[in-house]
């Protein structure tokens, strides 16, 4: 049974090939085939998970080599898959959520002209993502990594006829490239230092070869982290995710919340041993995670587009996972990833269903009062929001977030301040998630419901809702000193982690704090969006609050910041090279002020007096010693400046022959140096 796990990624990839290379098929065939392969993949992964559980997870996992990919002197890479508790969890999430979202999409996309293309991309995505998580070596992982990046690009820009969607897709692609370039350099570094790209061998060799805090391991982990923050949309490379909502909603549910964006978390968890060797990087992860979590949660508070709320929420929840990774609680991070995949997919599917029912309406302010018309969606929203904000005991989000907060507190890398930040984030999370519920389902009705979703859309939501409530108990342990079942399972895949001892009192305190933070947030949301007391309205209307609101709405103005720090200076340089900066500065600062004062004070007495008493004698003196040394010095100086300006301008003429000449001269000069030396 275990030997067959390579079929899991092969199924969607085969589906992709048939859908792309095959003839154009009817909608029923396309959806039937996609659902068949996804169901098969999901069933296969479930049965393999059961088989693995029965055998007990081997500490080093099971690997299976399919064939040799590249075989060169000293560089051999196999297409090999590796499965352990960590990748099994990811596979279950991908195939499970993937199946539900594809079922949902068969109805959601049913009126789209390019049905087949959509499902071809979706299949390719699922296949690539499975390759990513099952890869035995970092090169294959990188292949999957780029594959999911490509699919993300293709699917964000799926409705490419709208220019904005194309732009959003390009933005996602380019921002991800920045991170990926860093990651690629990191892979090269790891290969040159450790001589292999196989993950398990890297982890083994690294502990043998490097001590804690070795600059090389710090560099390597920072580079890997670069890739991770690009894919997982962490500050400062998060700007692509809110715009990525331009894609169809099932895509947002599957790719931009449940699976692809968690690839960064997976990567760090997978190479956790390396990160354990680099405490500096771990601190950096904590800082990045905390910043991202708070920033995104606050931005989510004021968004009007329902999908953007959830996008920022995803960024924020990923921030939680990064915090957990940073404090070394990898198991907690993966557990939150697991629960988050369920409830965030549910919320996105809900958003899609709302848009489906309301003529593609995305603006929360135009919704309202839908509780009666769409009771199913209402309950789905309540469950999703409750799980997202971590309402105590009944929701999955509570257990996973509680774990993270606890670890953040007791870990040497964290502390009280981290716990506080996490709790603030918790309050904000509850606030924005119930804001959505209250705005969309209560209050006045703004729009009529045009159609309600069918069973293919509601069934996946129902299953996800049940999961959002149920799976939390996997991470619950009756006694605080002992890790829960899920964490123990994860520890088989990542045996290096030594959890810090936890006392019953600490655990209880965090549970109480987390529950009250969530409840506080819900209460706040009720107060602000249901009651709407007059005093609050008045406060909101003040300019300062509006400015903050605007600031948050723009996502802390990161786009503006990038324009300011990257685009603008570049343009300025270009401008400066065009119209000589020095000259203009002189013009502005000296010549113009002087001219204006001179113009206004022309011909008055003072002027005449000056002319008589100062200028004429001076002129007389000047006439006498015209062209003396000083004069020449000054003239030489002006000429020097002039020449420098002219030379500097020549460097950027846009004339290719000039560039070629400079290039050739440089090359000849270098060659000359080599010859002489």
């Amino acid at each position, binding site marked *: 049974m275990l030997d067959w796990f390579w079929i899991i990624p092969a199924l969607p990839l085969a589906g992709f090939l048939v859908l792309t290379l095959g003839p154009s098929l009817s909608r029923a065939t396309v959806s039937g085939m996609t659902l068949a392969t996804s169901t098969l993949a999901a069933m296969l992964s479930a049965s393999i998970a059961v088989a693995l559980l029965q055998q007990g997870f081997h500490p080093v996992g099971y690997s299976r080599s399919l064939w040799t990919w590249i075989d060169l002197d000293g560089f051999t890479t196999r297409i090999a898959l590796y499965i352990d508790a960590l990748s099994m969890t990811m596979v279950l999430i991908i195939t499970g959520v993937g199946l539900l979202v594809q079922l949902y999409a068969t109805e959601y996309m049913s009126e789209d002209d390019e049905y087949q293309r959509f499902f071809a991309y979706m299949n390719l995505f699922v296949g690539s993502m499975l390759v990513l998580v099952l890869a035995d070596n970092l090169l294959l992982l990188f292949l999957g990594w780029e594959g999911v990046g490509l699919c993300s690009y293709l699917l964000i820009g799926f409705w490419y006829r709208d220019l904005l969607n194309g732009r959003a897709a390009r933005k996602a692609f380019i921002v991800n490239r920045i991170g990926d370039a860093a990651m690629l350099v990191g892979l090269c570094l790891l290969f040159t230092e450790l001589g292999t790209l196989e993950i398990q061998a890297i982890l083994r060799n690294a502990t043998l070869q490097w001590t804690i805090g070795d600059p090389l391991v710090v560099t390597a982990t920072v580079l890997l982290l670069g890739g991770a923050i690009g894919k997982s949309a962490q500050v400062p490379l998060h700007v692509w995710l809110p715009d990525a909502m331009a894609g169809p909603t099932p895509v947002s549910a599957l790719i931009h919340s449940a699976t692809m964006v968690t690839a960064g978390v997976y990567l760090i968890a997978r190479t956790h041993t390396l990160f354990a060797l680099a405490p500096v990087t771990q601190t950096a992860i904590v800082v990045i995670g905390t910043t991202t979590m708070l920033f995104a949660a606050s931005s989510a508070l004021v968004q009007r587009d329902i999908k953007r709320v959830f996008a920022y929420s995803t960024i924020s929840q990923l921030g939680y996972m990064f915090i957990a990774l940073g404090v070394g609680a990898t198991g907690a991070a993966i557990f939150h990833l697991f629960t988050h995949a369920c409830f965030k997919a549910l919320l996105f599917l809900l958003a899609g269903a709302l848009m489906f029912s309301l003529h593609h309406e995305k603006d929360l302010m135009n919704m309202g009062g839908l509780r009666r018309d769409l009771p199913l969606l209402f309950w789905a929203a309540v469950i999703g929001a409750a799980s997202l904000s971590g309402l105590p005991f009944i929701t999955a989000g509570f257990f996973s977030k509680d774990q993270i907060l606890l670890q953040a507190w007791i870990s040497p890398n964290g502390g009280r301040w981290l716990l506080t930040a996490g709790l603030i984030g918790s309050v904000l999370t509850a606030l924005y998630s119930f804001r959505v519920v209250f705005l969309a389902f209560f209050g006045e009705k703004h729009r009529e419901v045009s159609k309600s979703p069918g069973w293919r859309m509601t069934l996946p939501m129902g299953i996800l809702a049940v999961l959002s409530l149920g799976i939390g108990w996997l991470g619950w342990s009756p006694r605080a000193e002992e890790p829960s079942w899920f964490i123990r399972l994860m520890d088989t895949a990542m045996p290096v982690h030594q959890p810090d001892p936890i006392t019953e009192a600490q655990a209880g305190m965090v549970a109480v704090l987390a529950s009250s933070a969530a409840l506080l947030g819900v209460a706040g949301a009720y107060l602000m969006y249901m009651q709407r007391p007059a005093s609050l309205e008045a406060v909101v209307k003040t300019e300062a609050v509006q400015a903050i609101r605007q600031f948050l709405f723009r996502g802390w103005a990161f786009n503006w910041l990038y324009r300011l720090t990257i685009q603008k200076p570049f343009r300025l340089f270009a401008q400066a090279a065009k119209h000589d900066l020095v000259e203009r500065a002189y013009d502005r600062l000296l010549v113009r002020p002087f001219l204006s004062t001179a113009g206004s004070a022309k011909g008055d007495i003072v002027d005449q007096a000056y002319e008589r008493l100062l200028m004429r004698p001076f002129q007389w003196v000047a006439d006498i010693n015209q062209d003396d040394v000083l004069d020449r010095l000054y003239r030489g100086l002006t000429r020097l400046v002039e020449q420098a300006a002219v030379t500097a301008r020549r460097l950027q003429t846009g004339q290719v022959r000039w560039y070629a*000449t400079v290039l*050739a001269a440089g090359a000849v000069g270098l060659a000359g140096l080599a010859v002489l030396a």
Partner: protein
Amino acid sequence: MMDFFFYVAASVAISSTVLFVIAPNAVHALLNLILSFLAIAVIFLLLGAPFAAALEVIIYAGAVMVLFVFVIMMLQVGPKSVEQERRWIGIRIWWVPVGLAMLLLAEVGTLIATGAVTAESGPRRVGPEEVGLVLLSRYLLAVELASLLLLPGILGAYYLGRRRREDP
């Protein structure tokens, strides 16, 4: 005998390249260039590289240059462009390039004169079999990269070359 052919081929190559550099007529320049490539192919043959010689003729002289002819025929017909070319290649324009080239030649000459380039025996023949074996073993990665380069070459040429609707 071999030396004699070598010097003939070398002088043909150099003189036809000179003619190419100074020719005002694009097609004449191109013909000179093809002649130069053929002469270089002969040099390859004399240096014991028959495979490279055949490829030089097939790919360079046969395919790459045909593309050039094609484009020249599409763009530059008539004596007007020749006139313009004459105006562009006045005496003044040559100083810097020739100076740089001379400097480069001086460097090569220095290298040869100081004995950095030596050969105690003549050229040794290397047949296509050996080239193939090395190409597909030691340079396999480079071959893959080259194939990766060719694909964007095709796509790029197709994308750039097609006539778009908004074009005049």
